[in-house]
């Protein structure tokens, strides 16, 4: 599909497709760049957050593609358009999928540098892939220390929303949901059935220690690393539950992040802002 971002005369090519991994077909969208200078793998947030971050994630991919960075974003197995069973999926499997896609992207044009960019749970996955040797630079938005922290944050927001729609006698706090999980019962969050096994695994699935420090500009192999944590009021992809119809001006975040990406991958920078983003 050809797509002209608003406010821009450029036409972007976007290809959706399925990439086969063991046990599933991952839905992926490749945002082609006219003359790519680099590639980026965007690793999105946890299943329950997907729809809230989607629009801003797509716009970020288009923003990068317009500036010569070819982008691949995808749905984790068992979520969105990807096949596979969410209920039996594990963080290790999602990690293996992210690694496989990073490998797939690198193989397309091995001479181009590869950025791994993850948000929330995606930051843990991207961090682990990077730590395992994939990619030439790493960008993390709102990384939790481990997957459990990400799940707890989702659960707290979910419980808050549920309170608004349930009668007082049926309301449950986040801690009540956690007790259910720990007691071996699955819970349903935004249409996804969380299993006890996933919850238990989340405690031990975290970002490698050496990538936890915000101050670190490079990893132990000299590859650039940037960690951005956003507060509750910051405009970011990592802030779910924004209304679709609320204006979300991300231009500041996009341009400052792009400036870092261009520097980290030693790219020629392209135009300050060609789009309204």
């Amino acid at each position, binding site marked *: 599909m050809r797509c002209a971002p608003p406010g821009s005369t450029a036409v972007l090519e976007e290809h959706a497709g*399925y990439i086969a991994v063991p046990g599933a*077909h991952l839905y992926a969208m490749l945002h082609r760049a006219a003359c790519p200078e680099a590639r980026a793998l965007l690793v999105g947030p946890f299943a329950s957050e997907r729809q809230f971050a989607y629009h801003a994630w797509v716009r970020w991919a288009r923003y990068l593609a317009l500036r010569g960075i070819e982008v691949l974003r995808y749905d984790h197995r068992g979520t969105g358009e990807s096949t596979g069973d969410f209920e039996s999926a594990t963080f290790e499997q999602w990690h293996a999928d992210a690694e496989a896609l990073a490998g797939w992207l690198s193989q397309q044009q091995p001479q181009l540098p590869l950025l791994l960019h993850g948000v929330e749970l995606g930051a843990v996955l991207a961090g682990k892939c990077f730590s395992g040797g994939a990619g030439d630079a790493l960008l993390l938005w709102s990384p939790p220390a481990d997957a459990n922290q990400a799940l707890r944050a989702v659960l707290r927001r979910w419980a808050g929303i549920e*309170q608004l729609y349930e009668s007082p006698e049926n309301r449950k706090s986040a801690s009540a949901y956690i007790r259910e999980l720990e007691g071996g019962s699955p819970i349903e969050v935004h249409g996804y059935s969380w299993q006890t096994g996933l919850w238990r695994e989340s405690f031990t699935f975290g970002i490698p220690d050496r990538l936890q420090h915000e101050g670190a500009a490079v990893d132990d192999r000299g590859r650039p690393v940037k960690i951005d944590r956003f507060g509750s009021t910051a405009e970011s992809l990592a802030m779910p539950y924004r209304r679709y119809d609320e204006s979300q001006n991300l231009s500041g975040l996009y341009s400052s992040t792009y400036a870092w990406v261009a520097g980290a991958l030693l790219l020629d920078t392209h135009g300050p802002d060609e789009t309204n983003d």
Partner: protein
Amino acid sequence: MGPMKQTIEDRELLSLDGMWVTYHRPAGTRSKRPTAHGTRTGVLFLNGLYATRAGNGNVAVEWASTLAEHGYPSFRVDLPGFGDSECDPPADWCGYINSGGYATKVSALIEGLVRKYKLPGVVIAGHCAGAASAIYAAALSRHCVGMVLLDPCFNMSRLNTPKFRQQLNLWSRRSRVGGALSGILDLLKQARRKLKREGLPDNANLKLLRCWKEVVRGGVPVLILRAPSRRSAGLKPRTGEFDYLEHILAAGGPDARVSVEVVESSNHSFSNQQGRAAIPRLTEKWLGTTITNVTTAHTAVMGEKVILMPSAREGKTA
């Protein structure tokens, strides 16, 4: 790892007119390469306001897969500005949807799908805001042979609600005392509504209601699936609220082919266990009993009845 594929066993990705569509091939046609069916009605799912074409918690994926298993070619689309499709959302997204902004796009998409897959007709399914777009598109499309509307909404969102009122609303939902006071207010509202014999609320979506009337009176069968409303039982709205369901059923006239079902214990997005299971089951049952013997000729006759109705034309020029 192999290349990206646009087709896997049961699904195919399509890019049509700037929109990404996932096609769930009906069982029995998956091993053959030609994709023309020509026998069974297609079902097109429109995305709701906050979700992509996958729906909340992938629920639309499951619905479309299940219907395809039962032999119905099923499609899910990201309308422009949503999901992976092109464009940014319109500045006033709700206003755009509520005035039928997507009608021509959906109608053209149906035309394309009917031609490509030789479908005898298409049932449009939409959730919440998607239901509004479904009604407008049904008025415009000569190939629409039915609608499945999930928790359709016939009022516009209230604009300029003072901030203190929004906070009061939130408080009434969160606290027991607030809830009790809100209950009393509901009773007062109901009393006023009865005493004054109030008609449609001032934020009713009159254009959508007009369009609904024309479509339903034009003979298009409709299945309405409702999640139980907060603080209400069955199909009745919350105390003090206007009964849109009663209104639209009356507006359809005596010959209207409208079925209504409540999906007990479901939530508004129908993404919980109950909604997930009930929607394809009820839809399949309804398709089997209502949308039968649809042929291209039948569609054309029905099309003559519903094509380019006045409110749809308004939408086209809006």
